[in-house]
């Protein structure tokens, strides 16, 4: 893991009326790492994702990607620049086939249908969805849809992948498969920032973890440091570690 921060947030603030969802959050994502973002429900994790990926504009603060200021860029531009994301509640293009779903993102990057189809087929293969390529997304199971969403994000050939709860709802075997896939994605040279609730998964796969609570970053460190941090334990009072 090199010392350069491929994605950086500085002093990000986002308010909704009287509620402060993200409160002076600064973070670094280093090239090649898998960084975990955890925190109780409502801590502001998805809002932070939305701020990074352009779906929301921060009231204050800036986001840097490869030292370029991408704050306030429209979402599609950020996606094309190299920061891809998945959604917490998967959002496949329901009436289109799995292949077409992945081709959409691929087409954003390359011009021709043939090339896009090749890229899409390769990614479907990578995520074990090849046999479902001509199935409508509406017919896929939750697990398959989650994998499809990841394939779609990868088709953008991103440098950074933001995953919003990819593991929720998966059984233990599926969780292990997913973690293995994430490691393979990292092997391909993609830096990962993952939001998750399933603790054993996070502890398993992340080298570093940052913790949010009521919109603030309250802790940062290795999995073992985090699991023994009193602030974190208090935030998760009653939660499963």
């Amino acid at each position, binding site marked *: 893991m090199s010392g350069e921060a491929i994605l950086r947030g500085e002093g990000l603030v986002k308010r909704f009326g009287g509620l402060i969802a993200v409160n002076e959050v600064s973070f670094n994502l280093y090239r090649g790492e898998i960084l975990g973002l955890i925190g109780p429900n409502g801590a502001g994790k998805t809002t932070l994702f939305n701020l990074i990926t352009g779906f929301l504009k921060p009231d204050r603060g800036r986001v840097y990607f490869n030292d370029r200021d991408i704050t306030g860029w429209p979402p*599609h531009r950020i996606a094309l620049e190299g920061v891809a994301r998945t959604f917490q509640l998967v*959002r*496949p293009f*329901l*009436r*289109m*086939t799995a292949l077409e779903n992945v081709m959409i993102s691929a087409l*954003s990057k390359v011009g021709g*249908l043939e090339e896009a189809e090749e890229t899409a087929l390769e990614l479907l293969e990578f995520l074990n969805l090849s046999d479902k390529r001509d199935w*409508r997304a509406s017919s896929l199971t939750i697990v398959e849809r989650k994998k499809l969403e990841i394939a779609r994000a990868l088709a953008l050939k991103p440098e950074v992948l933001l995953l919003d709860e990819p593991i929720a709802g998966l059984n233990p075997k599926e969780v292990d498969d997913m973690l293995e896939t994430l490691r393979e994605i990292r092997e391909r040279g993609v830096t990962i920032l993952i939001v998750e609730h399933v603790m054993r998964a996070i502890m398993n796969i992340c080298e570093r973890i940052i913790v949010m609570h009521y919109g603030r970053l309250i802790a940062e460190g290795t999995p073992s440091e985090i699991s023994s941090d009193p602030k974190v334990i208090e935030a998760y009072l009653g939660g499963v570690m």
Partner: protein
Amino acid sequence: MRALRMIKAELSTKAGRIFNAAAIVAVILPLVVRDQFFINAMMLVYMYSIIALAWNLMNGYTGLLSFGHAVFFGIGAYTLMLLLYRGVTPWIGMLLGGLLSAGFAFLLGVPFSRLRSHWFALGTLVLGEIFLIVFANWRAVGGALGLDQPRRLLLSPPSIYWLNYARPTPYYYLALGILGLELLLLYAILNSRPGYFFQAIREDEEAAMASGINVTLYKCISMAISGFFTGVAGGIYTVRFGYIDPYAVFSMMRISVYPVIAGLIGGVYSLIGPIIGSLIFVPTAEYLRAIVGGTLGSRFQGVHFASFGIVLLIISMRIPEGLMGWLEMRGLLKPLMSSGGGSDER
């Protein structure tokens, strides 16, 4: 070219063979049938089909429901007529009418793309009413009385250059030809990059953004293409009837609502659906108007249009997927050029 290969594949399916047969019938129809009223009615069917197809590019394929397509139609109509006054052949007039509509539609997309589905639809409805008011009060373009074709055209012998025939047959072929062209072009577009993007936008705008699509830009493009063909249809109307007025060409009920009903009857998730819908709805509405209209007088218009409302209500509540969708769901027929292929096996 990939699109040509796909077209050949489509045409060899069961639906494709029906289509081929229908196309042949359409081409030879005027040579066999002498009834001019019938030929005229079919010409109207094709004209409305052109609008319905264009309308459905926005609705069924990009998720943009429009109640204001009369705007594009009217722009095309007035452009052709005004150019006719300047001695420009209607062929160019039609093309320019389409382009002007397209340009206007594209620009409209910039503010309108920020409106969510319901508000977008309402906005288009409002736009139609505005255009009607403006043109009905714009004396330079004829105001409420509209525009007649230039007198010299009436007196000149019929020619292809001026498209000033008395019989409906030439216009029949004009409309049919343009419909065919439109079908081909839309098929090619929908199976290319923009087409994929349109459908992604229809499915989920935010997911489309996350997939790198500039949603506003592609909405504008979809509207521009839709506006183009609708504008051309306006041109067809103008050369055929030789007289236009704002209450006809910018009419919500006579222009904007037709493609909505036709699309709904036929099914919005295929290219062929709106055409089938027009085939069913247009002759019915026109024959009703001709036959029943006389007896009820001015109140008739209310009954006529209220019945459109009832039809729309029943269809949207009972069979929103339309005829083609219904056939597809029962596995009876896979409509030609349907959107979102693939199977639903479990």
